[in-house]
Structures are given as structure tokens and as C-alpha cells.
């Protein structure tokens, strides 16, 4: 397997000039020194709570926002220093699926216009009949009847709109898709449809996915590898099965145990974290998780733990990284 996307020491600090804290401007460290790779055809899931920087990370990879530090490369080509024109050529290979199927489709355009826009802007459409042909193909591919192409988004349900958003993303045959919470706005019965669709398409088209989600159950199903983020940092990254069976970071363990389990016969010992996620404008010194960590010691407030490889491909950033086998009830069967 070869590397498709590589992020090296990627960082993003947002500066808010409108808020002044004395002489200091308000700074939000949204992504902090993040490095990882995504292989061809692989799904890497990024999980974390709101404000952990997972959406910012996705946008950084696509260079929808500019990084303040570090590099992103695709197929060995550094994207960070490309000119606008060069970047535009690369964009054909990278697409995005958004969370909100209501906000991400223009209400005034027809489905055909929405889906063909990326193809139009990369000159992949020859003429009118070719456009309709391609749109029809794409609609069939995502499980919608081709006769819907002249309708407007308001005539579709949330799940159908998400299918339209996916058709738009795959229209240019991208090799990389960032999917930002693609199913979290959908009902349970519709979630399954969209997840199946994305997996089928990935199998036939072979693209890689960065799957951003807060839902560990969804991630368990779609991901090959999982990265857990907390306050802008990746605290643990590794193969899915290892992360779910034996999380090594106390935050990963707490996240896994916090998810409600749809089985009344299983008693789960839940680790309930105290307190809230600190504000990203005021990240604690040392390990960002220490304020809520059940096993924090003195060293955690002075030294930010470095990411250490504990098993091939499995890295943890914790001074006291140790396997935390989760309770029997949650152990994968």
C-alpha cells in the first residue's frame, strides 16, 4: 500500500483580532503539531468531541484554509506551497462531503446543476447531452432515479440530499474525500443506507477517505484506522481493532466507555470524565487532557507527552500509556 496523503507537523492557529486580552490577542490553537499518513484506498477516521479541531484538520488537508505550520502532501507532492493555479489542478483529486445536507446544496439550482458543477469547472463536460448522461449515471450510482435530475434540493429528504452531495463529490473521480460528519444529521435507518453507499463506492472507485465523526459506533464500522483528537492534538492513532480492543490513552478509553450501548442485558462499567473540555483559547500546560484525566500526575502539567509508537502503527501521546482493556461487555466479539 502506498501513501496518498501525508501531514507533517500540521498546525493552525486562528487569531481573533476582535477580542483583546490585555496586550495579547485571542488565539485559538485549533490544530497542534499533527502528523499522520493516509494510504491509498484507506479510511482514516478522526474522532473527538466538539471543538477538538477535527473539522479544521479536514479543511487543512484540502487547503480550504491555510496551515500556520507544517506541510500536507498528496502523492508525494507538497500542497502547502503550490500556487493557486497548481492547487486548482490538484483539487480535482480531492473532494468533500459535508455534514449538513440542508445547508450544503444550493436551494436555487437543480440537482443536475449541483452535481455537474465540479465536472464543469474542470472541463470534463463536452456538451449538454453529455452532462445529462453523466448526471444520470451518477444519480443511479448513488441510488436515486435519474428522472430526479431537474428537481430542486427542497424536494428531497435529508438522506436523499446526502446522496446528491456524495454524487457531486465522486463526479470528478477524486482519489481523496474528506467526509465531515456525513451521517450525523441523519436518522438511524438512513445512516445505514449512506454508510453502505459510501463503502460500496469506495470499493469500486478506490478513493481514500478522511472520515470525521464524533460517533464511535459509526467509526468502528467504516474505518481502517482511527485517530483520536483532543484539543487540537492527536492523542492516539492506530488500527481500528487495536484502538477498540485495547485503547492506550485514558481519553480514548473514556470515550469508548461513555458511548451508550444498545443492549439492556449488558452492564457496563462507565468511566465518567469530570468537567468540560477546556476552551481552545486557553489550553492547559503540558498534556491538554490532564484536567479531566483520572490518572494524571505532576509530570503531566509540565511536559506535553510525545507521541510514542507502542505497537507497529499504533501511537499514543501519554506519559502513562498502558493498555486499558475495556470491560468484557464492550470487548469485540
Amino acid at each position: 500500500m502506498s501513501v496518498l496523503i501525508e501531514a507533517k507537523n500540521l498546525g493552525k492557529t486562528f487569531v481573533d483580532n476582535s477580542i483583546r486580552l490585555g496586550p495579547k490577542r485571542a488565539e485559538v490553537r485549533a490544530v497542534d503539531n499533527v502528523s499522520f499518513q493516509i494510504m491509498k484506498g484507506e479510511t482514516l477516521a478522526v474522532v473527538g468531541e466538539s471543538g477538538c479541531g477535527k473539522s479544521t484538520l479536514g479543511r487543512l488537508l484540502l487547503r480550504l484554509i491555510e496551515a500556520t505550520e507544517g506541510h500536507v502532501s498528496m502523492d508525494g507532492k507538497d500542497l502547502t506551497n503550490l500556487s493557486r493555479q497548481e492547487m486548482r489542478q490538484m483539487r480535482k483529486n480531492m473532494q468533500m462531503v459535508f455534514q449538513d445536507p440542508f445547508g450544503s446544496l444550493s436551494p436555487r439550482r437543480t440537482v443536475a446543476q449541483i452535481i455537474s458543477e465540479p465536472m464543469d469547472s474542470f472541463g470534463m463536460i463536452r456538451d449538454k447531452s453529455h452532462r445529462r448522461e453523466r448526471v444520470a449515471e451518477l444519480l443511479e450510482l448513488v441510488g436515486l432515479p435519474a428522472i430526479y435530475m431537474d428537481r430542486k434540493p427542497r424536494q428531497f429528504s435529508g438522506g436523499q440530499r446526502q446522496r446528491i452531495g456524495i454524487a457531486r463529490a465522486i463526479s470528478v473521480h477524486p482519489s481523496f474525500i474528506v467526509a465531515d460528519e456525513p451521517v450525523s444529521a441523519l436518522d438511524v435507518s438512513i445512516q445505514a443506507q449512506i454508510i453502505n453507499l459510501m463503502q460500496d463506492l469506495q470499493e469500486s472507485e478506490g478513493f481514500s477517505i478522511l472520515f470525521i465523526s464524533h460517533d464511535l459506533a459509526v467509526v468502528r464500522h467504516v474505518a481502517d484506522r482511527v485517530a483520536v483528537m483532543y484539543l487540537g492534538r492527536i492523542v492516539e492513532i492506530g488500527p481500528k481493532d487495536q484502538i477498540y480492543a485495547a485503547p492506550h490513552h485514558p481519553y480514548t478509553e473514556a470515550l469508548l466507555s461513555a458511548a451508550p450501548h444498545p443492549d439492556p442485558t449488558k452492564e457496563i462499567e462507565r468511566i465518567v470524565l469530570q468537567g468540560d473540555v477546556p476552551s481552545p483559547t486557553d489550553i492547559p500546560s503540558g498534556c491538554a487532557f490532564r484536567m479531566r484525566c483520572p490518572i494524571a500526575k505532576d509530570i503531566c502539567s509540565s511536559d506535553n507527552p510525545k507521541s510514542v509508537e507502542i505497537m507497529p502503527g499504533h501511537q499514543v501521546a501519554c506519559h502513562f500509556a498502558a493498555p486499558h482493556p475495556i470491560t468484557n461487555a464492550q470487548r469485540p466479539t
Partner: protein
Amino acid sequence: MSKPLLEIRDLNVSFGTKDKPLCVVNDVSFSINPGEAIGVVGESGSGKSMTALSILQLVPTPPARVTGQVYFDGKDLLQLSNSELTSIRGKEIGFIFQEPMSSLNPVMTIGDQIDEAIMLHTDLSADARRVKVLELLRLVGMPDPETRIDVYPDQFSGGMRQRVVIAIAMACNPKLLIADEPTTALDVTIQAQVLDMMLDIRKQYNSAIMLITHDLGVVAEFCERVIVMYAGHILEDADINSLFASPKHPYTQGLLKSVLTLTEKQHRLYQIQGSVPPPGTIKEGCPFRPRCPVRMDRCAVEMPPMKSYGPTHVAACWATAEGVE
């Protein structure tokens, strides 16, 4: 069995005109016993929130038309006047809304907002009420309540605001607590905190709880009984173990099969075809029919009646009744 605390009979809620009604709640009947935790599960548009809101006449009429009976302590809540209801809302029945951001008043301190409910329903002095407010803040796990009591909602995170909303709902020790998606807007670790806290409160106060949610995981951990709603109808009503072990309605079966868990590895997810019909599109027969894998001719004509499958398990399905699997 003891007398139910709340009994809903043939509740119907509809919008639209007399000639073209849009029914969002159809012939809903169920009861809640004292101290019971009951979950109402359904997808968006299933009518679960509408059912809860109509219990306290919180659905504006007009435009809505609400018919049926809602008996609480022997009184039909739907027949009460607004002033009569005031003595029940917040005192006998507490309500927790989904949105912790918008259900608090931004220009009142949280202490005053909790106090409001106590002031309305008791004769306690201001000092005694403040003591009570502090007690409630401690109950919902608010750190440092003495300073937080005089703070405005914008200084709180989502989880903390939801704790305040719960403190308000619990202020008068209600017999019934209606919680409409109380943890949906919260992060997983905060959801765990709030659910834990609600379980503690339930143990202490022994209130009955009606928990509205779309999350089967939350229901499995919190409730004793589940009502499954779909397009305004109750399709299944069962105790929690029986429902998860042997769901009778094809919709419930599909929901349980398609739900993602942390443990099971499936290669392909089970999916229920199609989507929830918009209100008003299915006028006769079973609302789940267009998506149902075991539908029969009869389903198009007649809504199946509730059939019993054990002492605490009923479901409305023709196919299940005839033993089709």
C-alpha cells in the same frame, strides 16, 4: 398493578385544514406508572415530541387540533384552563427540552431561573428558596454552586446549561419528568455525565420519567419500558428486555439491526429501504407499509390493532400477528 400516573387515550394531533388534515399524532394511547422510566423512540417526524408537548398543552391550538384524553392524577389535562395547568406545569410535571442553549433566559441568572419555579409553586421565604436552589445545583452536580448561582447562562457550556435545565425541572420534585432528547445536543463524555446524574436523581426522587430519544443506546441504559413510534403511530410497546431480545414489529426489528454498536463487526449494515413518509401522505393502513419487508395486501387498507405478545409486550403488525417472519 397500581393506578397509572399518566394515561393517554386516543391522542390525535393534526395540522392543516378540516378537509385536508395533516395528522402528526394518530390514536396514541399509553400509560406511565408512578416511578417508571419509559422511553419513546422514533426517527424525526415520528410524532414523539408532539405527543410530549400535547400532554401539557404546549402545542399551540390553533393551528394544531388536539383531541383525546390525557389523564394525570384523575384529571384530564387537555380540558384544563391555562391557570389550572400552571399549577401542574413545573410542579407536578417537569419538562426538559433538547436545546440547552435556547431554553434558558439569557438575561436572568441561573439562580433566579431555578428560583422562579420554586417561587411559583411554594410559599417559602427568599432565604429558604436560595437554600433550596443551592441544594438543586448540588443535586445536578454543578461545581462550586455558591458562585455559580449568580451567573448568567452564557457563561456556561452546553453540559452545564443542561444541568441547570434539569435543576429547574426537578425544582418542585415532580411526579413525572418529561425529557425531550435531553442529551442529543451534548458530546459523548458530557452525555455520560448527564445520564449518570439523571439516573442518580431518579433513584433519589423516584419520579416517573418519559424520555424521548432517537438513540436506542440511551434507552437501553436508562429505561424500563420502550414505546416505538413511527409516522405518528405507536407500533410497539414493550419492556426493555423483551423489546431488545425479541422485537415484534418489522420496523423495530429493522431499527435494531441497523443500529451500529461498538462490539459487533458487520461487513454490510442492514438497511431499512426508503425514508420516513412526510405527514399526510399515508392516510390509510399501516404507515410503515411502503418500507416493510413483510407487507401484505391487508396492510394497505387497515391499520393493524395492538396485539399482545406476553404480559408486557404489544405490537401492531398484521404479518407478526399471523406468524410471518
